[in-house]
């Protein structure tokens, strides 16, 4: 039998619960307590498309070194769900720990010989302490948090403080929760001491970072970016973007008389939502919708209209597992092509690819400047991992000197002064035309917006040369976008590297961790993190200056490889795809294994 795992500030705790049982807030409190001790954590919810009764897991990675990607493996399983017992037991690393409710006897055959059990009669303890069935259930969660605090050495005072903060305003709940916390802690001290080799020790490795989820960040980013109109249709995992926007608006956007400087419409479907966004954008308001893959499919026709008629719009797409309904509560980066080339005909759309909630905040706000400057839809591509999990990231910052870029809108004064207005006329050589807003001038600047082909002065035309002239300008406009979108982040390896890695979005923390581990194995790789489409010229340069590129994505079909090959005219064979698409967030272990295996094989080939 392997010895028990011992680790300080470097382990994974996984909670197996039943959804709707009130475990989520207790588990999050557990993670926050470790953060408050100055030790970085990353947490991930693995939940079903269901409200009550199905299995749900919460994974907390404790990493004194600050690795924030999903690690994989489990050192301590908190098994609170009999439905998933077998799978949960099987997922524990050798020498790991099983914390379980021992109120009812579990047959010996249900355990593994190579793990260490930490039994606690939770149900029995709670049944004795409470008579109300709901309380028995709810306090069970906080009771096991108390026991874990003892086992792992988490400061009880920190947990007590967190309880105080969480139930502020519902003060009657504070004392009983603290009581339950102590009950668990006391039991563990009396009965479970020396059973667990995993420990949390105070560190100073968190700094002023914040623990926040991407959808909260997106909602706030839209407030900061000046969105006044939101139209949306509920869909997992994007629903909380619109809800966060509403919550932040209530705080920041109500005037002294109690009137709202925002409008939120819950539309009848995603088609209507994007239609409302386009109508508002056409009429000069900053507007957005939040959706996920199926919504993107529904919005295609309107997105083509916005591209062709050149109307600003912002779409926050929180990607989930596709195709079809797919895996609605699992993560993927599988909407890249559906967004980049949304709609029939020749189209291209601007995509922003944030790596964490902080970039989600920045990019969401920036998206409105880009959309109005470029007069086109701009997508912010989150995924479920960023959107619905709490990430440890740098605190959000805002430059108070920033003035919104409202783009080229011709004013009544300019029209009056006789400035030439042609809605689709390229005056400045950047292929971005001027627009006018409805109601601007009594006799000048009115035009008819349409999805049909038209000339530079917005007059209907199916003349081939007129159509091509416009389509070519749209291409040039997309070229202009290259210099406006967030630039890629390039990092050179410590030693000269002939191989590179390209990655983007939520893969970032896992890739960073993998690179350090690979470097320790003598594998040096330059990296480029994509932050937007269209691709800056630096991307093609990076590819051509390396023998081959590992391209990390979370989808089956290597969609980013298609996009890069197509747009930068690169031989797809130059890319080695590392694809993770089972719906769980990609791990450093997965990336290390995939890259190391190929690099070692190459070295052997070279040696032969």
């Amino acid at each position, binding site marked *: 039998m392997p010895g028990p795992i011992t680790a300080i500030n470097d382990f994974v705790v996984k909670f197996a619960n039943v959804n709707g049982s009130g475990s989520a807030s207790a588990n999050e409190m557990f993670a926050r307590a470790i953060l408050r001790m100055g030790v970085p954590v990353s947490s991930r919810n693995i939940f079903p498309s269901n409200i009550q009764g199905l299995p749900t897991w919460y994974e907390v990675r404790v990493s004194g070194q600050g690795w924030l990607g999903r690690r994989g493996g489990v050192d301590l399983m908190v098994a609170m769900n009999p439905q998933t017992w077998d799978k949960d037991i099987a997922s524990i690393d050798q020498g790991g720990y099983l914390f379980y409710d021992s109120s009812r006897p579990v047959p010996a055959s249900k355990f593994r010989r190579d793990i260490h059990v930490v039994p606690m009669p939770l149900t029995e303890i709670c049944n004795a302490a409470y008579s109300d069935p709901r309380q028995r259930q709810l306090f069970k969660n906080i009771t096991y948090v108390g026991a874990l605090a003892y086992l792992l050495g988490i400061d009880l005072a920190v947990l007590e403080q967190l309880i105080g903060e969480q139930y502020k305003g519902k003060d009657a709940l504070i004392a009983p929760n603290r009581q339950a916390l102590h009950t668990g802690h006391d039991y563990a001290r009396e009965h479970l001491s020396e059973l667990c080799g995993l420990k949390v020790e105070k560190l100073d490795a968190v700094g002023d970072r914040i623990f926040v989820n991407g959808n909260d960040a997106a909602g706030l980013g839209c407030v900061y970016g000046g969105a006044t109109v939101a139209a949306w249709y509920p869909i997992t995992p994007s629903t909380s973007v619109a809800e966060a926007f509403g919550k932040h608006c209530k705080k920041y956007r109500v005037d002294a008389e109690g009137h709202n400087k925002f409008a939120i419409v819950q539309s009848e479907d995603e088609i209507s939502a994007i239609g409302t966004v386009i*109508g508002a954008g056409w*009429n000069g308001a900053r507007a957005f919708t939040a959706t996920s893959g199926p919504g993107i499919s529904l919005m295609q026709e309107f997105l083509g209209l916005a591209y062709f008629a050149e109307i600003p719009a912002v779409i926050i797409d929180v990607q989930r597992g596709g195709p079809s309904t797919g895996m609605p509560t699992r993560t993927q980066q599988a909407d890249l092509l559906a967004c980049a080339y949304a709609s029939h005909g020749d189209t291209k759309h601007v995509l922003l690819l944030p790596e964490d909630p902080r970039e989600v905040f920045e990019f969401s706000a920036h998206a409105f400047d880009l959309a109005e400057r470029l007069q086109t839809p701009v997508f912010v591509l989150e995924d479920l991992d960023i959107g619905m999990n709490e990430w440890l990231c740098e605190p959000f910052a805002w430059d108070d000197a920033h003035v919104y870029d409202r783009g080229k809108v011709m004013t009544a004064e300019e029209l009056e002064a006789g400035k030439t207005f042609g809605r689709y006329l390229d005056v400045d050589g950047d292929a971005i035309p001027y627009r006018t807003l409805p109601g601007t001038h009594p006799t000048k600047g009115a035009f008819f917006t349409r999805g049909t082909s038209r000339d530079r002065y917005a007059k209907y035309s199916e003349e081939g040369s007129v159509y091509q002239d416009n389509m070519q300008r749209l291409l040039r406009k997309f070229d202009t976008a290259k210099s406006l979108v967030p630039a890629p982040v390039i990092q050179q390896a410590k030693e000269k590297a002939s191989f590179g890695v390209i990655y983007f979005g939520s893969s970032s923390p896992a890739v960073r961790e993998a690179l350090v581990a690979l470097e320790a194995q003598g594998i040096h790789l330059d990296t480029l993190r994509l932050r937007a489409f269209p691709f800056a010229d630096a991307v093609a340069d990076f590819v051509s200056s390396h023998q081959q590129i590992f391209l990390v994505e979370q989808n089956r079909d290597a969609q980013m490889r298609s996009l890069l090959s197509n747009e930068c005219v690169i031989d797809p064979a130059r890319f080695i795809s590392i694809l993770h698409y089972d719906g769980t967030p990609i791990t450093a272990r997965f990336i290390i294994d995939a890259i190391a295996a190929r690099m070692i094989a190459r070295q052997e080939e070279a040696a032969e």
Partner: protein
Amino acid sequence: MTYITKPKLRHPAIAVNKLGFTHRDYEGSVSTLCAGCGHDSISTAIIQACFELSIAPHRVAKLSGIGCSSKTPDYLLGQSHGFNSVHGRMPSVLTGANLANRELIYLGVSGDGDSASIGLGQFVHCIRRGVNMTYITENNGVYGLTKGQFSATADQGSKSKTGGVNADSPLDLASMALLVGASFVGRSFSGDKEQLVPLIMAAISHPGPAFIDVVSPCVAFNNHAGSTKAYDFVRDHNEAVNRLDIIEPRETISVSYAPGTSEEVQLHDGSVLRLAKLRQDYDPYDRAAALAYLHSHGASGELVTGLIYMDPGAGDMHANLNTVAQPLNTLSEKELCPGSAGLAGFNAARR
């Protein structure tokens, strides 16, 4: 369509409205629809209504979907911004435009294909939502641009030009609008300008979702015997429940009605419309009764026209959303962005 452009000469004695605009200032491009198309008469009626109401043309935003009817906003109000959007989706685009700037007048022009089939969902939902607009469907019972297929408003048993008989039940947009909460519902006939112009004026002045279903014969594909949307058929079956007349504020009332048979409707520019009852049993302020009336009279083959329903105290979407009076599209970072100060609390709460 005609290729003859009108001369720009202006007769010195041509009538001008309160803003000094002539009728010509409300016109648009030359229509490309078939000669005799009912839709062109509706465009003329819209032009007339805007002229009579002395609306500054550029303060109107005209939106449409796809189809013959949806082309018509190009043929009226040339100084207004227009938006020919996608099929059946004009209501959502209009909703967004209205949210962005509550101060403009929103005119939605659609057809029976656009609103009763592909766009039925958006049609009912924008009315439900209380969008302040004038929504006109130019209803001819056929798909014109694709050459004569039945639309969802074609009556059961009516015949197509090629002899096919429509087996499906018709959808009545006026009833539907009533059902989902329109605070103004009218129905008219493209060939009855006297009835249509005041109805459009009242709809534009109405401060909530106003819907007018206008039967508008398609001369190319639905104007034959056996069609219930043909000129002759509609003239024979048109049953007006009331009549709106325009009264200039200082004009002496020359027409006299029997007591209790007429009342006045105030419009936004101060002028009034007189509502004359043609059917004594008809009450346009009773939604449930109006619905029942449409249903029973429709069943007997009558086309009930006139002001079907009005709630003079109607509110709109902006009131429901409690938005500021200033148009949202005029707010800048000063009013909208909480700045770095706003982030301090946000960050602190997440540590």
